[in-house]
């Protein structure tokens, strides 16, 4: 059962990353840790796939990146949501919510009278 959840979540990796960054700029490792915490470790195997997602979002202009210094004084790349990224997150959140509500309602609906 857990494997299926993780598959679904991984399909929405872009959305998760946008959400992770909605609390402020952070580097890839922090994004990974938030996803671990928020999704019951959906990326338990294959955290690496997070990075192409981050770079793709940067290419699309939803996320901006700059090099900075981490808490432990290491050179690290920090990502932040752009205005367009924030708008995208809103749109995707809404559509996911609508989708999930519809699926949930359908699953609880009785048989035809």
């Amino acid at each position, binding site marked *: 059962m857990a494997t299926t959840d993780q598959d679904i979540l991984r399909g929405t990796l872009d959305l998760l990353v946008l959400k992770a960054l909605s609390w402020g700029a952070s*580097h*890839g*490792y922090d994004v*990974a840790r938030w996803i671990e915490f928020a999704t019951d470790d959906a990326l*338990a*195997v*294959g*955290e*690496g*796939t*997070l*990075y*192409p997602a981050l*770079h*793709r979002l*940067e*290419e699309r202009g939803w996320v901006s990146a700059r*090099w900075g210094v*981490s808490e*432990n004084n*290491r*050179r*690290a*790349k920090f990502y932040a949501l752009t205005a367009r990224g924030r708008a995208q997150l809103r749109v995707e959140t809404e559509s996911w919510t609508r989708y999930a509500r519809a699926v949930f309602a359908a699953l609880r609906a009785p048989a035809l009278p």
Partner: protein
Amino acid sequence: MGGWARFRGLFGPDPERDVDDELSFHIEMRTRELETRGESPERARELALARFGSLERPRAECVAIDERRGRRHARAETMSELRQDVAFALRTLARAPVFTLVAVATLALGIGANTAIFSVVHAVLLEALPFRDADRLHEISTVYPDGTSYPLSPPDFMSVQADARHFEDVVALRDGPVTLLGRGDPQEVVAAQVSAGFAEFVGLRFVLGRPFARAEHDPGRHRVAVLTHGFWQRELGGARDVVGRTLDIEGDPYEVIGVLAEGSTIAPAIDLYAPLLYDERYDATTARGRRGEFLTVIGRARPGVAAEQLEADLRRVGSELAARFPDTNGRLTFGAAPLRERLVGDVRTPLLVLLGAVGFVLLIACANVANLLLARASARQGELAVRAALGAGRGRLVRQLLTESTVLSLLGGAAGLLLAHWATAALVRAQAGNIPRVEEVGLDGTVLLATLAISLLTGLVFGTVPALQATRPGLTLALREEGRGVVGRAGQRLRSGLIVAEIAVAVVLLVGAGLLLRSFAELTRVDPGFRTEQALSFRIQMTPARYPEGEQVRAFADRLIAQLERLPGVTAVAAASSLPLTGVSSLISFAVTGAPPPPDDVNAEISILSVTPGYFGTLGARIASGRDFTEHDRGDAPLVALINEAGARKWFPGENPVGRRVTAVNDYEVVGVVSDVLQENPGTPAVAELYVPYQQRSTRTLRVVVRSRGAPATMMAAIRSELRQLDETMAVRDLAPLEQLVSRSVAQPRFFMALLALFAAGALLLAAIGVFGVLNYSVTQRARELSIRMALGARAPQVVGMIVRRSVLLAGAGLAIGVAAALALGGVLRSQLFQVGVVDPLTLGAVALVLLAVVVLASWLPARRAAAMDPGLMLRG
């Protein structure tokens, strides 16, 4: 990384390195976290790597994404920079409208002239002839022992076609005027009779109908014709149902069996094609008819066969025929020349000279615009210095300035294209200069590309030096010395050098134009041997259908002359088979009775003309000795002839020809010698001519000369109406004042002379503008110095003298270089000159005088301005 990290930005982003840094940071952080939870360092790292999964895949993906983004970014940046530069350049140019207008106009003239001449060169010299495998087509000719070339006779054509091994195929055509009847006024059209397989050989394309069948070349069958596209459109309104219709050509019905596609013809003058009828002369096995030469023969060489092999092949065919038919072919052979050479060989040199000339004009235009830019650069020192101070690198500034000059040259190119379009259209319309293939001239894709290339190159040529000069290090000085300018002594030298170069190039063009002008003057000074004033000429053709017998032809000629003589205002009328300046007329073999046969390398032929009594008087030629023809020299009287002076010199050196007998098909007694008249053009000496009475040797082509006191236009109308009354089926051709024969014979040299003179005048004007610009600018620059001089007592004439002296120095240097270059380049003009040497003191002297005069004139205004300055005002201000 250390010290290197600081410089990394200099070489642009390094995606691989960045991705590695990013991923290893992640692994390291995870390892550290696991360690704080109590794992051993080795175990922690192992677990971290396992969690991460594949390292290679994300790494490769990230690098690919970043590189793609980097490239796109760089491209966008370049484009936006270019857009900015172009927009900035346009704004800057719009702020200096006078400068922009002068520069664009100068460039438009230069580029326009180049585009126009290049489009002519491209159409005439470069573009392939519109025939299948045109590069392998050669014209084959009969070559006489003295090296002269003639067409082929039918039996010789059949022999060459059968025996030449290095030719894939050989075809023949015979073209000439025929009279088209039954469509309103009779009119003359040009018909080409072509040998079997001609359409396939040339690759003629049909819009309607079909080519001739082999059987249609047999004599005695019903006649067929194929129309050219132009004739079909013009005469038959492009009717689709034309195939099957009948045309009346000189009384014979011709069935139209096809129409050619537009532009698909061997020569633009041809109106219709008919099959060459293979009568008994088309026989390779007999001697009969071998010396009646009238076929233009074209052969297609086999692929890869060299010109020498073709020549050798034809010589072999010639010597085989000479052995077999010694009486007719004993001294003859055959030769070949590339068809393109035959068509355009004459105009190659003049066109290339013109192309070179417009290239020179463009160089001068470039120098002028460069000078303008240099002058402007000093005015813009402040702006450039500010931009440099704000961090724009030298490369950035140079790029900006080059963008500006490219924008200028593209604007100039666009305007030039308009000029060229207009000029070439006028050229094609006027058919100026008798240039072959000129109707193909136009601004096609190649020409447009060439113009674009020329424009871009031009922008670089005139833009580079000023851009480098304006941005050279030390620019910040300008901030302090605003206005005084960095363009100091070095700039001044550069500008002077440009002026000297401009003058030198202008001198080369002036010398070339001067030589052609002198040569043309010599051409027009040549005495044509006849009087052209108050005389008209025209040509008629008596068709075999209407005038089957010689008797009828002669009777018509008599009647025509008698009718025309009666017209009011007419003082004399005469006719001949050919007129001066219409080309050498038909050649026949010639011998002086009782004289030893001429050596083998002398062409034993003479040009024969039939003339009516009074012809020489009407034309204004002179009887040098003996007598003129009279009304009594008719068919039943003894055969008599006159020989021209060239003929007398050639055949009767040191003797009096009068009273001698000669053979030219018939035996004639020479009764007089007549002065030479021009035959081809003034540059070609007269060849031997034998005149015989028209009544003793009539021809169906008749050229008539009418001398009158009346206005030409009235006379022309009267002549037309007279002819309509005599024979309403007869077309009147080439009705025009006699002067036109003379002017047409020098049309080509006049055209080239006029164009080169135009370009030289343009070059001189541009050079004068350049001199003016530089001196005017230097007066502005030196205003303070000049004011001090005047305040210290220098008088206006001294100041004027100083400025003018400088211009004369520049002109002298340019003149010396230019004359040296002109002498070195003179050889290319040699073939175009008539009675003028390449080193012509008169031309050189005239050029020097004109140039000095123009340069002094150009320096006069700046000098006056300098002399008129108020020293007090200047020094106080």
